């Protein structure tokens, strides 16, 4: 029963990720006075891409053709670890938050490798930019995560969220810092506007797009789907770690439905926030990204410091 629930939750993750990015696009279009596509447009795009025959470059090695599958399965595995609507699932117990960061790193490694594999100028450029950004973003993310795990004194996500839930409403300075740090890292890692623009094909601004420029057909569909999953994963992490109220603690039908409702509302609100910030903020130059990420690291460090200094017993 528990395993069935875990599988259903993971499938829900995979199924809802395009809807989230459709909703994000819808909000953004309305904020910018454009006609929004329907919420189901990402599904249609994925379906169209899956139907098409993939065109692979002549010199592509096996890495190029296998990478989409590896990236997608790494993201699905990561999704199975993160509690979406219920805690205490068997998959969540088997892997902790450091493994989750490892899954992200694994997927990113293969994405960069695939970008290099084809040998075009754009692919290599995108890979090098992605690795630069992620090498700065990863310590910031780990800092933010460690603040949580030090508070809960466990690295298991589900146990940590249970700890936060059981304490009730406690104003923690460290969580404020860690949340801001995690939001900044999430924006950088999912390639959203101040760092990277997911909708452009300009040489100066491409990071994620440059790496996947050579992909087509079902390969491209899998990579797009994986990046939508990644966006949703970060959203769920932010929503469920720092505002965990509403998540199901037992497996009754009522609690699960309530958990689904709560997480959808939280994700919708987060997407609106992201759409507003993307409308207001301009894309920054590539060389200023390290300033942005060192600020995120500083926030994580301050969160850690204020946990040790302000909150821990003396």
């Amino acid at each position, binding site marked *: 029963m528990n395993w069935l629930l875990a599988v259903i939750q993971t499938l829900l993750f995979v199924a809802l990720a395009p809807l989230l990015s459709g909703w994000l696009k819808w909000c953004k279009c309305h904020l910018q006075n454009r006609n929004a596509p329907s919420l189901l447009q990402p599904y249609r795009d994925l379906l169209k891409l899956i139907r098409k025959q993939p065109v692979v470059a002549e010199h592509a090695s096996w890495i190029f053709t296998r990478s989409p599958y590896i990236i997608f399965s790494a993201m699905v595995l990561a999704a199975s670890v993160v509690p979406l609507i219920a805690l205490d699932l068997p998959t969540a117990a088997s892997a902790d938050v450091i493994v989750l960061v490892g899954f992200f790193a694994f997927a990113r490694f293969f994405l960069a490798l695939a970008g290099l594999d084809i040998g075009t100028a754009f692919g290599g450029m995108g890979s090098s930019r992605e690795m630069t950004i992620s090498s700065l973003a990863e310590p910031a993310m780990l800092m933010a995560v460690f603040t949580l795990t030090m508070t809960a004194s466990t690295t298991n996500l589900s146990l940590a969220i249970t700890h936060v839930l059981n304490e009730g409403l*406690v104003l*923690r300075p460290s969580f404020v810092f860690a949340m801001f740090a995690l939001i900044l890292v999430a924006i950088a890692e999912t390639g959203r506007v101040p760092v990277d623009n997911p909708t452009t094909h300009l040489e100066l601004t491409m990071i994620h797009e440059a790496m996947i420029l050579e992909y087509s057909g079902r390969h491209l569909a899998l990579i797009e789907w994986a990046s939508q999953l990644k966006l949703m994963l970060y959203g769920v992490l932010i929503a469920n770690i720092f505002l965990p109220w509403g998540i199901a603690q037992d497996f009754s039908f009522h609690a699960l439905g309530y958990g689904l409702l709560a997480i959808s509302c939280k994700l919708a609100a987060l997407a609106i926030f992201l759409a507003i910030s993307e409308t207001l903020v301009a894309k920054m130059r590539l060389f200023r990204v390290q300033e942005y990420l060192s600020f995120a690291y500083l926030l994580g460090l*301050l969160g850690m410091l204020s946990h040790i200094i302000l909150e*821990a017993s003396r």
Partner: protein
Amino acid sequence: MNIEQQDFYTQAILSMAALVGLTSFLMLGQGRLLRLIFVFALQGLLLTLTTALAAYSLNSPHLYISAMMTLILKVIFIPWMLRRQVLLMNMHRDVEALKNNTAVMLGGAGLMVFSYYVLHPIVQTSSAIMLNALAVSLSVVLLGMLLMISHRQAVAHVVGFMAIENGLFFAAIVATKGMPMVVELGVAFDVLVAAVLFGIFFFHIRTSIDSLDVDRMNRLHEVDQ
């Protein structure tokens, strides 16, 4: 004593202290003058909220008056005046290139740890909240000094000076339930006069060396060489 055992007031004060510390860090890394002044006003707003919170929970109504004074002086009047002067002198488009920004930020984090280290010996004689608030306010003072050292524009120096005053004010509110009203009025008046005087000095420095970059003062000589 852990934070989850403290009452709500203590948690709120600690969160405010952390946010005040964060605004100090934000000021330290800011290259644009208008944004620097905005963050300074934000710090003033946090101080106002802290004072109002202290007044409510400690049941001492005279703190409402100092909250009002903080609101009027540090959130509205001084930022407005600094902003007007920056706009008048046409400096709002200048971006101050900070030399090794990251090192300054890490130095700031080091100063925060240092202020906790300094205040650690008084753990035995005071409550946890007082220790934390004092340490944060000491670090706000030190960060204000670092701001004055690392920036070159005279306007940034003034903001750093005011931030130092903010740190002292925060310590006074949290640790001793506010200073006596006379002292507070005197300090507020001093700050006001200082702000006006600084405004006059800006224009004098500007007319004599044609810039507000204080590094250029090093090159001043009494006689022409």
